[in-house]
């Protein structure tokens, strides 16, 4: 009994921390209908600012909290002013991509400044436990509860009684009407981002103290947890976000009690998927809401694709095909092999995110499924590698589509959240399903690539193999786009309501897009597995999903040639300029931000 009380208290405390993140997300969503993927990065910044204050400046606790809140709020204001305000009249996908880019830039800046190694963040509070009923509670628990409750009260007073608070509420009810009544929406956005960032930063500080450890991986986790809590409570609903957070804290805490720590996140994401499927408007939304107003403007930037003459493409393919015959270094071939593998993933993502408009942030999971299937088949059942890769692709297509199908009824930003969560679920299942996946140890000794009994070990043969596979996949995709499926996919992206009114079933065509895209990604993962000879649950991570997304935006959404050009550019250019590995992700983030701002249609234009 006593331990259950402990788990309950722990769940409520953790829930309180999530609430600080989720309330910020809900405020931002309420005003700008945007899910701020950078919220976790602000939380990360808060934790590290707290570390600087506590460990280096030795500030007393109240001052630490204020210091963190102020610095985090400043970061929030900067994000709003320079990251999002320029995109106000932009297409709907733009602010979403911008917050993803900002998140990567912030995380990398923190990592470069403080190194990725975990640090201890001492709590500055006496280490005593009070007996409460059958459980215990410490001063830090009380502090977290106190900060949570007092922030909620402050926020309530602000929203209810201050003039700016009224403006925030008005803008979240009806932005256009509020603007017509003279509400300065920019000021409202500033206020909301400032408050959200201050809450997020303090939350990071408190969590760091709670676990006495901070590291740069906290960011993505915080974003995910905050988004889960917010969506469970109903996007944009501030009290709902608090309840959703407490619920999430409890579900996790009890889940850990029953199954163990490594299952903590699995429960959070399953809760999200269940809520998205059963009650996509959150637990506290009225059962059926008015249908959404017709959306004006398009999801992606309108543009005309750059027409590339067929002979140019033929010459380019021929040139890359004969490249290994020329005196080029293995280093060049190796770099291009990586580009071809990324190109396959980008082909898959450009179909899913660009052609049919489902911006997937969990695409690396499809790589992982293909890689594990192919590796295990060839290793344990001695299936020939070529066949194993194809089966891996098919498995990715089938399993990926089934896993992603709960998100088919969602739109816009929700799809990104759901795919992010599903991607995490896949990685957690791989981690925990030890009897099949060998868990955290990973799979080693994966046989090298081979075709019809001949091993492909030399860089030249691997180059030809991966290049040929990519070209075949690209040709198939181009053929798909020119068929009735291409226009049906694009119709769904441009206006899913009009598409349905003309008989296009969203489930059917989204499934087909994920089946086709899943195959390409699975094949890429399979080839990678045989190339690396060792994989584990972290080989294919969210960073790769974001890298693929950057490639796709760079090349032009839905653009087959663009995906490959983007892959070559993003893999090749850092090599050409010899940019150190730790700066690359930072550069990818900046490239993404610049593209969204200045060339949203990408290099070769959306199709």
């Amino acid at each position, binding site marked *: 009994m006593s331990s259950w009380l402990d788990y309950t208290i722990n769940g409520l405390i953790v829930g309180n921390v999530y609430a600080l993140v989720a309330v910020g997300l809900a405020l931002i969503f309420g005003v700008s209908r945007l899910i701020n993927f950078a919220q976790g990065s602000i939380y990360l910044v808060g934790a590290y600012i707290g570390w600087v204050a506590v460990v280096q400046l030795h500030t007393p606790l109240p001052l630490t909290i204020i210091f963190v809140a102020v610095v985090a709020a400043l970061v929030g204001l900067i994000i709003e002013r320079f990251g999002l305000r320029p995109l106000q009249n932009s297409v709907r996908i733009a602010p979403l991509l911008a917050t993803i880019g900002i998140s990567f830039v912030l995380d990398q800046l923190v990592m470069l400044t403080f190194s990725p190694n975990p640090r201890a963040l001492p709590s500055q509070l006496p280490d005593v436990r009070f007996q409460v009923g059958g459980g215990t509670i410490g001063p830090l628990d009380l502090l977290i509860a106190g900060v949570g409750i007092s922030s909620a009260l402050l926020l309530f007073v602000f929203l209810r009684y201050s003039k700016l608070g009224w403006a925030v509420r008005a803008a979240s009810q009806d932005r256009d009407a509020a603007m017509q009544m003279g509400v300065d929406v920019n000021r409202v956005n500033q206020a909301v981002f400032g408050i959200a960032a201050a809450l997020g930063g303090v939350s990071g500080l408190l969590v760091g103290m709670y676990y006495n450890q901070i590291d740069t991986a906290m960011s993505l986790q915080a974003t995910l947890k905050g988004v889960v809590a917010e969506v469970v409570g109903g996007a944009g609903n501030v009290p709902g976000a608090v309840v959703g957070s407490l619920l999430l804290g409890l579900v996790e805490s009890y889940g850990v009690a029953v199954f163990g720590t490594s299952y903590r996140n699995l429960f959070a994401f399953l809760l999200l998927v269940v809520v998205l499927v059963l009650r996509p408007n959150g637990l506290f939304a009225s059962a059926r809401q008015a249908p959404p107003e017709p959306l004006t403007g398009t999801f992606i930037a309108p543009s005309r694709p750059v027409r590339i003459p067929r002979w140019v493409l033929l010459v380019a393919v021929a040139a890359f095909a004969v490249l290994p015959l020329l005196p080029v270094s293995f280093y060049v071939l190796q770099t291009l092999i990586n580009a071809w593998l990324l190109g396959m993933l980008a082909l898959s993502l450009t179909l899913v995110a660009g052609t049919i408009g489902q911006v997937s942030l969990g695409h690396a999971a499809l790589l992982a499924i293909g890689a594990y299937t192919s590796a295990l088949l060839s290793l344990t059942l001695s299936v020939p590698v070529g066949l194993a890769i194809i089966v891996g692709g098919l498995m990715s297509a089938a399993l990926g589509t089934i896993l992603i199908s709960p998100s088919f009824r969602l739109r816009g930003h929700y799809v990104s959240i759901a795919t992010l969560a599903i991607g995490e679920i896949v990685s957690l299942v791989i981690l925990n399903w030890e009897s099949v996946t060998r868990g955290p140890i990973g799979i080693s000794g994966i046989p090298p690539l081979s075709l019809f009994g001949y091993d492909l070990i030399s860089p030249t043969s691997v180059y030809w193999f991966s290049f040929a596979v990519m070209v075949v996949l690209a040709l198939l995709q181009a053929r798909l786009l020119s068929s009735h499926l291409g226009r049906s996919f694009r119709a769904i992206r*441009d206006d899913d309501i009009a598409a349905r009114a003309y008989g296009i079933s969203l489930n059917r065509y989204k499934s087909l897009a994920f089946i086709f895209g899943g195959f390409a990604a699975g094949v890429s993962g399979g080839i990678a597995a045989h190339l690396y000879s060792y994989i584990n649950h972290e080989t294919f991570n969210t960073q790769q999903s974001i890298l693929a997304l950057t490639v796709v935006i760079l090349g032009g959404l839905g653009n087959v040639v663009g995906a490959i050009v983007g892959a070559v550019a993003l893999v090749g250019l850092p090599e050409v300029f010899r940019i150190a590995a730790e700066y690359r992700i930072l550069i990818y983030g900046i490239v993404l931000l610049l593209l969204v701002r200045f060339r949203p249609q990408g290099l070769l234009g959306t199709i």
Partner: protein
Amino acid sequence: MAEAHAAPLLSLRGLTRRFGGLTAVDGIDLDLAKGGLVSIIGPNGAGKTTLFNLVTGLDRPDAGEVRFEGQDITGLSPERLAAQGIARTFQLGRVFGNLSVMDNVLIGAHTRLRAVKPAVPVIGPLLELGLALLRPSSVKAEEERLREEVKIILARFGERLLPRIDQPAYSLSYANRRRVEIARALALEPRLLLLDEPTAGMNPSETAEMQGLVAELKAEGLTILLIEHKLEMVMRLSDRVLVMDEGKKIAEGPGEEVRSDPKVIEAYLGHGLSGTAEQESAA
């Protein structure tokens, strides 16, 4: 016409839709005979577009039923209703911005695809994917035939759309986008066509052109449900007119009869339209 009276193509009974405390559509009854044209008029916010959404499956009624050719189709998905031959245009215009005019109209013919969409359960979608990639001659022929048909449909709009057939829809003028919507609806070969303010935002000569087209479609025997604010057009085209106000039907009958109905005049009076109505009757 006798059979048409016996079994209306579309019939609504007690159709009701509530949004919170507001009853947007309140117990509407309507019969639409095959080949007929009924107009729905009423002030803004009367519930006309909501009624269209209920008939086309984009929204579900809280009460009442929709029958199409005698079959209960209440609450079916828009996909299924499209397959049954119900096509609509949208009030604010919902063309696919990044698709060419040709592709927009081809989407209208989606429900008529046969060769590439075999009616096989379970593996049907996979066959569709395979056929789209392999493109046997039957699939090619079907696509070619539909493309030719699209050109014939576009020719109905004179030189408005044909020269722009490969341009993306976002680059078209507002009036041309409305025309693309109607072309898309025609490509479905509809048995029932719902037009939601087809002349909204059009100038007088464009309106006259559109009115001519709707008259032509009616003469060809198409059954049409029309929402329109321009009363002159309504009076010229409609077999009957249904007047809605605050979700309720306040009058129904031949145009001239409805126009002189005191309840209708009252509903419009507050909106300052009675003057327009008089002018038009004088003209």
